[in-house]
Each structure stands twice: as C-alpha cells, then as structure tokens.
C-alpha cells in the first residue's frame, strides 16, 4: 500500500494520507484531480472494482466531502479517495464513464445531498424519494425531527422521565 501511495505522490498532489488499517487507506485530493486519479487507479494500479461513493456534510465549513472507495481485487486492498467541494451550488465532475454503477450513486447523492453531477445519466430523476418537496434530507440543516413530527404519528406506549424531575418526585416531592 505504501508503495502505491508513494507512486501516486509523484503524479498527483495528495493532501492527507491516513493509513486506517493494513488493507484500507484514505487519501484526500483536489476536486479537479479526483476523476483523473480514479481513472489512473483503475487503469494502472489495479483498482478495478468500484465499491461505493458517499458524502459528508461539513456544514460549519460550508463544504461537502465526497468519498470514493475502490478495491484492488488482486491485492485485496481498498483505497478511499476523499475530496471537498463547496456546499453552495454543490457540483462535482461525473465519473460514470469509469464504472456504469457510478451513475446510480451520483443520482442518489443528487437526491440526498443536492450535489449535482452534470452529464451523469438520469441524475435529475427521483431515486427513492418520489414526490419529495423539501431540502435534500441528508443535509444537516434538514430538521429530521420536525419533519417526522409533521409527517408521522407517534408510537403508542412511549413515555419518558426527566431524571431531575423524577428524582424530585421520588426523593423530595413536597419541597
């Protein structure tokens, strides 16, 4: 793994390298270089299998982090590529031409986070949230609790106690 990262370092600028465990490493790169790096890993380093891609909302920093995880089946190792993009009008270069299934992940990220991937097939179609009329639900400014309270009925039989109030009732009810 170290060797691969060293090689990558000659060709791309790597911001952060985190050796999570023997067979998994995280690498952070520039948004502009991400897709070419993915192509390079697929074609020259044996990372032929695309595992998944996902996003994290760093709302305080005004950024989205996109993570691609690739697998090298021969060496049985995973390499995760992270990149950060601006949260406002979030847009990322599509990678669907490298693996077909990327288009599906990108469609999901469009729906869940509102990250656009121009040119990705069917990227604007609903993925699982048919008829969704709110901000993308995985954004951290989406108020899940409020939405749930407005949309669903509460489960019967639930009830809780505030520890401090409960102790008052039990230990000093008359004070």
């Amino acid at each position, binding site marked *: 793994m170290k060797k691969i990262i060293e090689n990558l370092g000659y060709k791309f600028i790597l911001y952060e390298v985190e050796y999570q465990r023997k067979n998994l490493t995280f690498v952070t790169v520039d948004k502009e270089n991400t897709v070419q790096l993915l192509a390079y890993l697929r074609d020259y380093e044996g990372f032929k299998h695309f595992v998944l891609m996902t996003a994290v909302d760093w709302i305080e920093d005004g950024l989205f982090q996109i993570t691609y995880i690739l697998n090298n089946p021969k060496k049985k190792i995973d390499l995760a590529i992270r990149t950060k993009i601006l949260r406002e009008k979030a847009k990322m270069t599509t990678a669907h031409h490298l693996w077909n299934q990327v288009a599906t992940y990108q469609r999901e990220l469009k729906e869940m986070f509102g990250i656009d991937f121009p040119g990705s097939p069917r990227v604007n179609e609903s993925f699982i949230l048919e008829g969704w009329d709110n901000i993308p639900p995985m954004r951290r400014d989406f108020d*899940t*609790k409020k939405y749930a309270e407005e949309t669903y009925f509460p*489960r019967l*039989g*639930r*009830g*809780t*106690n*505030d*520890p*401090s109030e*409960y*102790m*008052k009732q*039990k*230990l*000093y009810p*008359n*004070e």
Partner: protein
Amino acid sequence: MSSIKDILTPFTAWKNVFKEPVTVKYPLTERPGAPRYRGFHKNDVQTCIGCGTCESICENEAIDMVAVAGFEAKDGDSGLRPKVDYGRCCWCALCVDVCTTGSLCLSNEYTWVDTDPDNFRFIPGVDEKSWDKNELGWKKPEGDYEFYGLKRVEMGELEPDERNHSFIEMIKGYSKQQAEKEADRCVECGICTATCPAHMGIPEYIKAIRNNDLEEGLRILYDTNPLPEICGRICTHKCESVCSVGHRGEPLSIRWLKRYIADQNPSEKYRAILETENLQKNGKKVAIIGAGASGLSAAHYLVKMGYEIEIFEKLSEAGGMMRYGIPEYRLPYDQIDKDINYILSLGVKIHYNVNVGKDITLKKMSEDFDAVFAGTGLHLGRSTCVEGTDHKHVYQSIELLRKITGGEEIHVAEKIVVIGGGNVAMDIARSLARLQKIKYGKVQVITTSLETEEKMPADREEVIEAREEMATVNPGWSPQRIEIVDGKIKGLHVVQCLSLFDETGKFNPQCNLDNKNFFEGDMIVESIGQGMDLSYITEDIKDHLEMGPRGRIRVNDNFQTSVPWLFMGGDTIQGPDVIHGIANGHKAALGIDKFLIEK
C-alpha cells in the same frame, strides 16, 4: 415432434449430483457482525446512573428513560434506565459515545426476527437478550475522542508561600473564558439537583453561564439560595460528588461556577435583576434569632413574601458561623457583606448585640411577633476532657476563630497541637499557621484526629492545602493526656486509634495502647465538634417542646416545633453545614407562611 435427444437431455443434469455446490447454503448459519459492528444495545445497569444523556443526544428520540424494578432513585442515581425503540434507532452509537459512566455499548448482533413489533422496544441489561454476553461490538473509542472535557479548568490560587503569611483570599476565581469553558463540560443531566440540600437549579445556572446571561444565572441562584457569594466559596459542594461527568473524568466545578455568577453581578444592580424593587407588605411580623445562614435565608424568603422581619443577633456583625467560624482567606468579609447587604436592602432589620433570653425573652418575642424562627447554631466548643484540658493554654477552636474575626489578639505559641479532623480543625490550624508565620517566621502546627487519613471528615482540599502551608496533619491517634511540667504545656500524649464505631454504629473508639506517640507543643487547641446553647428557651416553653434524638429539638417537615409559633432550623437541627442551613431557612419560611395563612 420430440426426438430421443429431448428425452435424454434432462438426465445429463445428474452428472452434477456429486459436485461441490457453488452457491451458499441457505439459511445462513454463521455470519457474525464485524468486531466493531453497531448492533443491538447492551447496558451494564449496575454501573448506569440513569443520567439520561443517551436520551438527550439521540437525534431520533429512540430512547426513553423508564423506571425499573429494583432500582430506586438515590444520591447520584435517578433509578431510571434507558429503553430503546428500534423502530427509531439508526445505530449511530452517539448514545454509547456520550455515556457518562461508560455503561452503554452496542453488541455486534444484528439479526433478530420477531413477529411482535413491540418486542423491538426493550431495556438493555434488564430485558435479557441472547447477545448480552457478546464481547464484540461498538464501544466508545479510546483516545481523545470525547464529547465533553474530562479535565477541570484549573482554578488559579495563591501559591503556598504567597498566602501562608496573610489572610488574603487564596482562590482567585474564574475569568469569563475559563467559566464558559468549564460550563461547557456540563451534560445537563440534573442528577446533582437532588443531592444539593437546597435543590439548586444547577444545570440551569450553568447553562446561563454558557449563554453568557449572568443576570438570569443570578435569578436562578436566588430561587433557592440567597447567599451565593458565600456558598460559591465555602459550600461543601455535595453536588460535585455525584456529578455524572465525574464518573469518567473530574466533576464540574459547580461551586466555582456559582461564585462566578455572583462575582460578575454588581451589588447595586441586584434588586433590579432580581425584581425586588417593589415588595408589597402583608402586615405580619416574624422575628428571627441569629443572623447566620438559616436565619438570613428565612429572612430573605419571608421578606419577599411581604413579612416584616427583625433579626436578633448576639454578636456585633451578621453572618454567624460564616463570618466568625470561617477564616477570611476562604471567605473574605466583603463577600459576606455583599450577600447580607442585599437581604438588608429588602427591608430586613437586624438588632445587633442582643442576647435573646437576657435582653429580650422568647416569650416577649412570641407576643410581639406572629412567629419566631430560631437559627441559633452551634457555638459552644466541645472538649476531649482528657487530663490537662483545664490549662489556660488549652483553647477551643471556635472561640479562637471568633476572636481572630473580631480582630482580637490571641495567644499564638511557637508549637501548637490541634485536636480534630474536620474542616474547623483545618481552619484553625491554617489560621494559626499564618499567625505563626507572621510572628515567628516559621510554622509548627500539628493536627491530629481519631479518624485515619481516609476517614477524616475534612474536605480533601483542606487537608492538602493545610500541608502546603507547612502544617502537619497526622491523623489516627487518640488523645490520652496533656503533659504539663512546671505549669507549662509540653505536649499531647496519644495512642493509635483503631476504630471509632462498634458494630451497632455507636461511637466507641478502640485503641492500641501499645502504639504510643507524643506531639510536642506548648499550646493545645481542641476542635472536635460544637454544641448548642439553648438556654434562651425558658422552662415554660421547653415543657411543650418535643425532643428528638441526640438532644435535638424535634421539628416537622416545615421546621416547625411542637410549639406552633416557634420554628427552628440550621445547625441546631441538621448539623453544621451552610447549605443545609440555607435550605432549612427556605423551607421554614414557606412553613411559616403556610402557618400564618392558615392561622
């Protein structure tokens, strides 16, 4: 039309009968979750204190705090335990990562089939599950991954060599930045509130600090405690001993945070902040004996309810034991005055130098006032009564402390032995150490007590600070006699004390008479507890008073004695402790109000 080939072809499949199957056999028999998998919850319910922090952090409201048979609410434990609704849990494990005791974790079990959806709500650790003994699963990661600081913001204090020759306050107090940082460690569970004798709104005032709303903070303090400058310095802070953050780290500095709120609010703004500028009178009068913690507390709450209050104080200044028993380096007089002056500004009158029983009788008070509250405290020193205690250089700590406060000169010998292991013993030892340092340039005070180091009743920091100031603390000895040669004290003979109480819990010290020791000294100070002086209660009233255990007067929940107009509280009822006194005074005030409304 079929051919012979069509008939035979199906049989060719038979050739695969003995081949190894390439598919996985169904059902899956063994496929455990990864070692750190986040599966169903486990809770060590004996360690859990029911603080509800797991419930507060849960974004999905999947956790309810519920009562569980066999777990009662008690100091430091709400008796509640978390119940998880797996219809809402998203297995994020924030509840595990925030857990204050570390009792909660997730097993790596993730498969469970049941036809009744209600079975997917259960109390981990109480409702038995097959994964209760699974070792694997998610636990809070080690290292500096913490949701709240485990370490206290350090309190600045004067170094021993800066403070040992003066009575300047040694604790410096928090700055805004420090206080907010310390307040940020609070998880707002509220477990502390029940343990505080005054049941102060602790999480609420800490929150006010975080929000930088110190006026709101002051209002919260005064809801339950009208002496916050004093308590912010010398409270016995029982709340901190149950703080949930203290299970894995250092408890919140609740006392210092209270002091911060009081210190930051200027006294001239108190009445505006506390909305006491226009108090309405109700025409009734209550007399209070003693301007100590309980008397002042009762006065404060009664005057706010509209009563006219007159306090009768034996000494020339108000504050009782807080002023005359606690040294200035722990509680400066201007801070006592700040709390008391506010109470006086509400219209409370104090008659100083009035000895109830001599200058005015209790009976006369009962005629002139609608009710009387007595918070007369414990002001008589107790003696060990060992041989030699009648020598003129054997003193009572409480008398010496009173004289030091009063500015009187006291005898300070070069070598002093203090008998006692409580906070008062530390107070007098540390005061004498300062006076020795000033007079002789060196400290030779030794304190000894029956209790061993671990069982000494003094607060730990008091012992540590006494030693920093070069006083010797040598506990675990029983005084036998004071050696006097030619009329001069030479020292104290002691033997090793093995235990204080017998099996029935009765005070009955056992000693090892063969293990002797001698503490050299030319002055002895006894500090083994205080007694009460109730001589102001005349026989005709005493005849109607019901007595409780240990010679104390019996009072009901409202601190009312069996003589209806006479209420009592403070140290005479609940033993020496400022915060208990304050709580008693508050409850007595409510009791008096109830009594006079019903009368």
